[in-house]
């Protein structure tokens, strides 16, 4: 059978269960596609050499009577998620030869389900960026137009899914890093509720924002992966119990921020505004009520997001000092050892953010930046909680434009501004999903749905209406 790599996880799972295909067939199909396209796209940083052995083991487990829907499904994993005994480097030179000493909890769960890991995927270094242009190992190209970026920071994972070089993938989302590349590559990307998925074994970027999430071809697949990796974990003290948040009643009401006045002409950047309006009205035709909601704290959200991002990045990346692992360079004295290893090991964007974080956390600036940002964050969270009393999901575009040209956004601030729709869910901890909404000028664009804390099911329900 040809084109097995083009199946969704759910379709492939049914064929595996029916004995029509084997895990080895699936793995071979993906490896053949990787062989064909990865050289140009640069989605995988490494393709594991034991993929067929893993697949064979999955087939043996099935023959012995096991039957998980992910048993034998080939997946790609972002380079910041640890798999014991394999390299993991967050696409950074500072971790170039680092070998993981334990499995991330999500990997433990996927191993127990029987998934097959194809390789590790490219990303912006330490998940800092939005286009995978900040990788120390070259940009990942968009499978729909190789002159354009795949988005980021999980650009390799999204490109691998879109180009059928895997059936699904894991990414991580700090300010849109799963949803942004999903939008640019025309696939589904889910950022779960903060704490829904354990982050043990995820290389930390911004600990109060980071969440691991699935990137898939369909919403059913995202739901399946999410249900497999979710759950409270004693190894991650921020992980939450499934029942922490109260169950939401289904209201059949879709909210949209009043700021995004759907009549406003100026919103039509690159035609994404038009797609947003079409999506909104298609839901109305399906029996949903539309409701404009006030979220005044969206205005300072991006500034608050970046202040907290810088602050936590500078703290989290301080662990990379070349003493216990990673790149270690010799200088003239101890201080020099650190400064040289970090100066040469980190790329320009990581260094910039570490310095900005050092600035905003400095005595004298702390209250003016970090204190204000956390206040804005708390206020936004309250406004979201209030909004979800009357709507099931809030609809926005995922990104203000389709994928940009490689090198187009060389000014860092202009790249930050593209995150305007995705960062609110990280500030508030709400779950959000990007669903493909067709194309603008031949390039895929996504629509973002955000739901109440713990209410991923509302995302899947409304998202399926859009498929």
């Amino acid at each position, binding site marked *: 059978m040809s084109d097995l790599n083009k199946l969704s996880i759910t379709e492939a799972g049914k064929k595996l269960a029916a004995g029509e295909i084997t895990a080895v067939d699936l793995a071979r199909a993906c490896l053949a596609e990787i062989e064909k396209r990865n050289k140009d796209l640069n989605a995988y940083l490494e393709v594991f050499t034991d993929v067929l052995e893993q697949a064979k083991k999955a087939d043996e487990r099935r023959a012995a009577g096991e039957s998980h829907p992910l048993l034998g499904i080939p997946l790609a994993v972002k380079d910041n998620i640890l798999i014991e005994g394999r390299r993991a480097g967050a696409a950074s030179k500072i971790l170039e030869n680092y070998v993981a000493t334990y499995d991330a909890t999500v990997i433990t769960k996927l191993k127990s389900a029987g998934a097959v890991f194809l390789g590790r995927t490219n990303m912006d270094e330490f998940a800092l960026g939005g286009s995978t242009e900040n990788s120390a190992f070259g940009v990942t190209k968009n499978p729909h137009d190789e002159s354009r970026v795949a988005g980021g920071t999980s650009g390799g994972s999204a490109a691998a899914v879109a180009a059928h070089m895997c059936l699904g993938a894991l990414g991580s989302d700090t300010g849109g890093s799963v949803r942004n590349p999903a939008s640019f590559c025309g696939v589904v990307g889910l950022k779960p509720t903060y704490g829904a998925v354990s982050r043990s074994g995820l290389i930390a970027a911004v600990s109060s924002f980071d969440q691991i999430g699935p990137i898939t071809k369909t919403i059913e697949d995202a739901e399946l992966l999410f249900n497999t990796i979710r759950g409270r974990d004693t190894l991650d003290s921020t992980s939450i119990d499934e029942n922490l948040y109260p169950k939401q009643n289904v209201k059949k009401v879709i909210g949209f921020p009043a700021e995004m006045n759907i009549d406003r002409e100026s919103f039509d950047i690159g035609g994404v505004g038009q797609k947003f309006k079409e999506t909104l009205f298609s839901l109305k035709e399906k029996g949903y009520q539309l409701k404009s909601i006030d979220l005044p704290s969206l205005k300072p959200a991006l500034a608050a997001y970046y202040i907290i991002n810088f602050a936590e990045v500078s703290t989290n990346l301080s662990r990379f000092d070349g003493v216990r692992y990673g790149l270690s360079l010799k200088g003239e004295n101890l201080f020099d050892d650190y400064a040289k290893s970090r100066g040469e090991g980190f790329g320009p964007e990581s*260094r910039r953010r570490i310095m900005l974080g050092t600035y905003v956390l400095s005595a004298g600036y702390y209250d003016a930046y970090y204190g204000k940002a956390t206040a804005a964050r708390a206020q936004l969270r309250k406004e979201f909680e209030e909004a979800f009393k009357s709507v099931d999901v809030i609809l926005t575009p995922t990104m203000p434009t389709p994928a940009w040209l490689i090198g187009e956004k060389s000014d860092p601030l202009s790249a930050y501004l593209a995150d305007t729709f995705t960062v609110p869910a990280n500030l508030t901890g709400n779950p959000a999903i990007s669903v493909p909404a067709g194309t603008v000028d031949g390039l895929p664009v996504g629509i973002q749905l955000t739901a109440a804390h713990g209410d991923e099911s509302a995302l899947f329900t409304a998202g399926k209406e859009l498929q």
Partner: protein
Amino acid sequence: MISREEVLQLAELARLKVADAEVAGLQKDISNILEYVGQISQVSVEKEKATPFNYNVMREDVPRAVGDTMGGKEEALRAAFPKKENNYNIVRKIIQKDE
């Protein structure tokens, strides 16, 4: 715009070596970004302290077997040492004489 000296001071605080040729670019980028995020000053901070969103997250202490304090990871952790000698991680002397 933040000064050249401020950039160098930040780099030192952050334990980062910055090439001379990079400083001017960093001055410009950091200033632009700080100007943008500076709009946060318009946010008013409420006096009332928010209720912390926490619950007990401590896990039970589980003693490890004698001689296996690293849970079987000792070799793997050692393998990551940048420079080792006789199973020890070689690091530079921390306390150094003042010049």
